[in-house]
């Protein structure tokens, strides 16, 4: 399943700092997005070179966004190591991110599928729009969950959509109905992933040991924060924002038990989203059957796609 995403030979040898920066960046990443591309590409019997190109494309875009994101958020660490902008310089981090996006266009245009180039460019512009918008709401502690969803659709879900749709586009299957279903699935996966990631900030299912209350202290009210503060008074929100640790935070709810009740309510809402996602997976199955693909491969794909919500939202590693 592992795919070689990064090779020093892909980048000019006369730019040693760039290679060193990419070495740091690409090691340690889980490569979830490229794995998702593989999951979708395999039953389609996509040429292995094309599959590798797609995997590399999504990882390059994702890592470029991380380089820029860390600088914008002033995050000191990435994957447990100093973020590129702190180790090299902010200028190098920006250039390295831009260089990755440029390589994406060089590689994809070399492949020659203009629809794929166009769609990938749209996704990159969505990503940048989302990043821009997210930065514009820092310090806004009255933002709503639907508003954050719109940002996350651009910033996070766009990449999930790409992972699901790009293999079909690479096969020149541009069936609108099929792509509608894949878009809806990608949007839901992206939202669920983001919401789960936002829960880590409050130490919910935080198996990876993410920094607690990092978003809140950085002035960013994430989706769970927006959900729980929707019915709070201004004084309660003030108190929540000033929380230095989880005990301060629980005090806003008069105890941890009440806080966990809110988590359960949030989970219940997202379980509805999961049900909706599974509805779209069934629709996808009906489409794939019409495409006369191998029945076993379809069944396996559907099984894996159905299990993604457990992995992405509930962080269950089966």
């Amino acid at each position, binding site marked *: 399943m592992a795919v070689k995403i990064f090779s020093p030979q892909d980048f000019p040898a006369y730019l040693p700092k760039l290679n060193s920066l990419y070495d740091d960046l690409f090691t340690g990443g889980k490569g979830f997005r490229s794995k998702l591309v593989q999951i979708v590409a395999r039953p389609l019997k996509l040429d292995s070179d094309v599959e590798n190109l797609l995997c590399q494309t999504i990882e390059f875009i994702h890592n470029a966004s991380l380089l820029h994101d860390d600088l914008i958020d002033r995050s000191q660490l990435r994957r447990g190591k100093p973020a590129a902008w702190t180790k090299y310089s902010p200028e190098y981090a920006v250039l390295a991110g831009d260089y990755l996006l440029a390589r994406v266009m060089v590689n994809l245009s070399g492949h020659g599928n203009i629809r794929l180039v166009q769609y990938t460019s749209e996704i990159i512009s969505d990503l940048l729009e989302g990043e821009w*918008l997210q930065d*514009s*709401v820092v310090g806004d502690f009255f933002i709503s969950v639907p*508003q954050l969803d719109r940002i996350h659709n651009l910033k996070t879900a766009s990449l999930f959509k790409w992972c699901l749709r790009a293999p079909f586009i690479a096969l020149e299957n541009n069936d609108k*109905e099929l792509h*509608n279903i894949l878009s*809806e699935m990608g949007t839901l996966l992206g939202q669920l992933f983001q919401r789960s990631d936002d829960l880590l900030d409050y130490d919910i299912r935080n198996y990876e040991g993410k920094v607690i209350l990092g978003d809140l202290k950085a002035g960013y009210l994430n989706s769970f924060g927006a959900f729980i503060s929707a019915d709070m008074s201004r004084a309660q929100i003030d108190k929540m924002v000033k929380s230095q640790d989880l005990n301060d935070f629980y005090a806003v709810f008069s105890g941890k038990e009440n806080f966990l009740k809110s988590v359960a309510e949030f989970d219940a809402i997202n379980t509805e989203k999961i049900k*909706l996602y599974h509805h779209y997976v069934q629709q996808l199955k009906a489409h794939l059957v019409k495409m006369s693909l191998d029945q076993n491969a379809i069944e396996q794909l559907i099984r894996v796609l159905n299990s993604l919500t457990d992995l992405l939202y509930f962080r269950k590693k089966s």
Partner: protein
Amino acid sequence: MSRFLTLKKTDAEYSKYIWGNFSATERALPIESLNVGTPQESITFEILPVSSISRPSFFKLLSRLIKWNYFFLIFIPLYYVFVKNFIYQRLFDLPSFGLAAVASILLFAGLNIRNDVFDHVSGFDRIIKSSSEKPIILGWVTAHQAHKISWIFILAAALFAIPVCYSQYEAGRVAAITLLLFFLGNFLTKNNYKHKYFSEFLLFLILGPALCAGYQVSLGSGVDTEILVFGVMWGVAVLFLLYLVQYANLFETSQSGIKNTLTHMGFDKSKTYLKTWWSLFLALWTGYHYFYGSVYWLALSIISLGLCTVPTYTVISNAGSPIGSSLARVRHTGFRLFIIMTVILVLEQTWYLINYLNWIL
């Protein structure tokens, strides 16, 4: 137990589900939409048993359907026209005026319901997720039922309007021109009459000069410059409310390709536009009071409105993101400014009325 169903606009069943007349025991609530307003549109409905939807009281349902909280937009001109003509001793045909008032209330209610139906069927309410309770979206009524209710209101309005047109021919002419423009707007615009430049002009015309002139001619008092100036001023104020809503939804409407004045302007220019538009209203207010009001009320109202305008302009200027809570704050502050203006207007008219009654008694 709910289930999901995805339908394309081209599917035979689509129409039944969007109008809600596919079943007597179930409701179809749209929860996800793609390609809204295009032939490729598809909607995912959540199908729920009617019994699982909590039904509101009749009065709550009715007030949400007819949007009772917006009725002041027709009550203020009604009150103004009554006071003005009472003082000028031109209440020539009070029964017709009363009938016209009832007709306008019924028509406004009917059009508000019809508007919700149109938003539901066209997909606009799936682009702009309103924070207010919308009966069709909540499954309290189906679009089909709401459509029928709207026609009951509109036909009832027509019943009340016919005697007015019969006794006051000019009222018939005003109504005919307004209706003509309304239907022209509906046929000319692609999306919704609310979301085009011509439709903004129509809203200004219908809720401004046409409404005020219509009330006055129903009294048999004809049209004069004063009522037209007031109508224009009121229409400009109503458009300010519309622009506030457009501003609050700027990001969603821009993303969806809906064209209106503020999406055309963009985020930053819209701030200047909103302030300029309200300044235009203040200029009209000053002009109107200079020519037709008292100097006392001119000074008092301009000072009061000026003081309230400053924080509104500050909130507008400080809006930093096209998607955060600052947009809702702009809308809220702007609406509050509008309400303050209407309170001043009502107090002023009441003051004139009391003064006049004191004088004649």
